[in-house]
C-alpha cells in the first residue's frame, strides 16, 4: 500500500508540475491575471459561500418544524447549486445584439420553473414525512451547529 501511495503521489506531482510548466509558459502577465481568479475562487467559497450556507441552515433549522428540515436541506442543495451554475446564463452576460441564436432562452422563466418544482418537491416530501413521524420528537435534532 505504501509503495502504491508513493507511486500515485509521484504521478500526481509530475502531472501538477507539467501543469505549472504550461502555466509558466503563458507568461507572467497572464499568470498575474490568473492568480486573482485562482485565489478569488477560494476566498469567495471559503469566506462567503460556505459561511452563508451555514448561517442559512442554522436559521432554517430554528424556523422550520423538524419534519420539514431534511427535505428543506435537500431542496437547498439542489436549488442552490443549480442557481450557482446557471449564473452565466441567468445574467446573459455573454449575449450579443447581433447574434440572437446565442443565449436564446428565457432563463428567468426557466429558473422560476425549476424553483417551483424544487419547492413543490420539498413540500410533498415534508408532508409525507410529517405523516410518517406519528409522534413528534421533543429534543432538537438540527442538521447544523446547535446551540
Amino acid at each position: 500500500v505504501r509503495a502504491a501511495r508513493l507511486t500515485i503521489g509521484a504521478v500526481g506531482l509530475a502531472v501538477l508540475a507539467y501543469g505549472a510548466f504550461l502555466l509558466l509558459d503563458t507568461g507572467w502577465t497572464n499568470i498575474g491575471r490568473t492568480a486573482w481568479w485562482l485565489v478569488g475562487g477560494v476566498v469567495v467559497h471559503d469566506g462567503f459561500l460556505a459561511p452563508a450556507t451555514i448561517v442559512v441552515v442554522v436559521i432554517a433549522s430554528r424556523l422550520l418544524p423538524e419534519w420539514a428540515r431534511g427535505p428543506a436541506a435537500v431542496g437547498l442543495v439542489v436549488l442552490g447549486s443549480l442557481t450557482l451554475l446557471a449564473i452565466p446564463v441567468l445574467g446573459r452576460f455573454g449575449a450579443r445584439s447581433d447574434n440572437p441564436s446565442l443565449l436564446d432562452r428565457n432563463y428567468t422563466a426557466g429558473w422560476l420553473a425549476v424553483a417551483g418544482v424544487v419547492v413543490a418537491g420539498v413540500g410533498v416530501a415534508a408532508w409525507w414525512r410529517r405523516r410518517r413521524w406519528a409522534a413528534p420528537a421533543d429534543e432538537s435534532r438540527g442538521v447544523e451547529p446547535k446551540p
Partner: protein
Amino acid sequence: MHERLRDPIPRPESFTSRLRGPELTARIGLWLGIAFGVAFATGLISHVAQQTPGWLTFPSRPVSLYRVTQAVHVTSGTIAVPLLLVKLWSVYPRLFARPDLRRMRSAAVQGLERASIGVLVAAAVFQLVSGLANSAQWYPWHFSFVSTHYAVGWIAVGALVVHIAVKLPVIKTALGAPLEPADTVSADQGDRADGDAGVRPALTRRGLLRGTWLAAGAAALLTAGAAVPALRKVSVFAIRSGGGPQGVPINHTATEVRVVPAATDPDYRLTVVRGATSLSLSRADLEAMPQSSHSLPIACVEGWSASGVWGGVPLRDLLALVDAPDDADVEVVSMQEKSYLKTSTLPANFAHDPLTLLAMTLDGEALSIDHGYPCRLIAPDRPGVLQTKWVGQIEVLS
C-alpha cells in the same frame, strides 16, 4: 454556540453536524474525481483536435466524435458543481484546524498537505467557474482562456491525484464502512417501537447523498439540451435552444468579424494556391463543379452542437485542380477583417476526406451570410471554431 462565538475563529469542533464524516466525503469524492477525470480526458481530446501535434493524427471518423466528447466535457464539469459544493461543505471544518506548533515535524507535514489542498481547491473552482462562464461566452477575465484553462486542468488533476495518494488509507476505510453513524434510525421510520433511543436525524447522510445525486442529475438534464436535441424542451439552462438561421445556431456573425462587404461583393473570387500555381474561381464556377451533400454536425467548444445537411464542392476536388499531394496540409483563410479565427490549418487526413466540403448550401438553401456565404469549410469530426467561414483562399502547404 454563543459560548463558542466569543472565540471569533471557529475550531473544527465548532461544527457539529452529524452528516459530516469521511464516509460521506469519500463517497462524494469518488464521483467528483470521476467527473474531473472525464472532463480532463475529454479536454485533452479537444486540445489535440484544435492543436494537433505533428506526431499525432486526429481522426476524421466517427463524424460526431468531437460532438460527443465536447458535450461530455462541458456536462461533466457542470455535474461537478453540486458535487464540489457538497464535498467542500463536508470538509469545511478542516479549514479551521490549527497546527500543533510544539511538534514541528508534524506541523510541517500538515502545512504541506494543506498547501496541496489549497492548490486543489483553487484549481478545481477555477476550472468550473471559467469553464461555465466560457460556455456561455462570458469572459469577465483578462487571462487567455484556452491556454490557462488547459494548464490549470493539468494542475487540478495533478493536485487531485496527490490528494488521493495522501488520503488513500482514509478513503479505503471510509468506503468500506457503513455510511450512517451506528446509532442512526432511518429518517423515514416512525419512532422505534422498542423505545430504544437512537438518533433520528432530520437528514441522514443517505438523504444528503441522494440530494447531491439529484442535483448532479438535474444539472446535466437542464443544460445538455444544447447538444442533445431530445433534451431541448427540458434544458431550460442550455446556452442554446438549437435554433438559428437555417435551423443552426451561430457563434460569430458576419457583422461582428466585419466581413459583410467582402462576402456580398459580386466580384467574389475564391483563390486556390499551391506554390506558384494560383486559381481564381467565382461562385458560379464553384456551382458548375460536381456537388456533394453530407449531413455533418457543427460542434462547438462551448459544448453546443447541431446537425445540418451541407451541400457544395468536395474540398479534395478543388485540391485536385492544383495537383495537391495527398499528404499535404491545407490552410483555409477567411475574408473576415477580425483576425480571431481568420485562418485554420486542415491536416491532410481532413483535407482529402471525401466528406470535407467547401459548402455553399445548408438544408438545400444558399448559406445565410452568418453561416459563411459565399462558402465555408465543413469537415467531419472537427471543432466548430476551425470550420472557417467566408472562405477567400485555400492554400496547399508544402
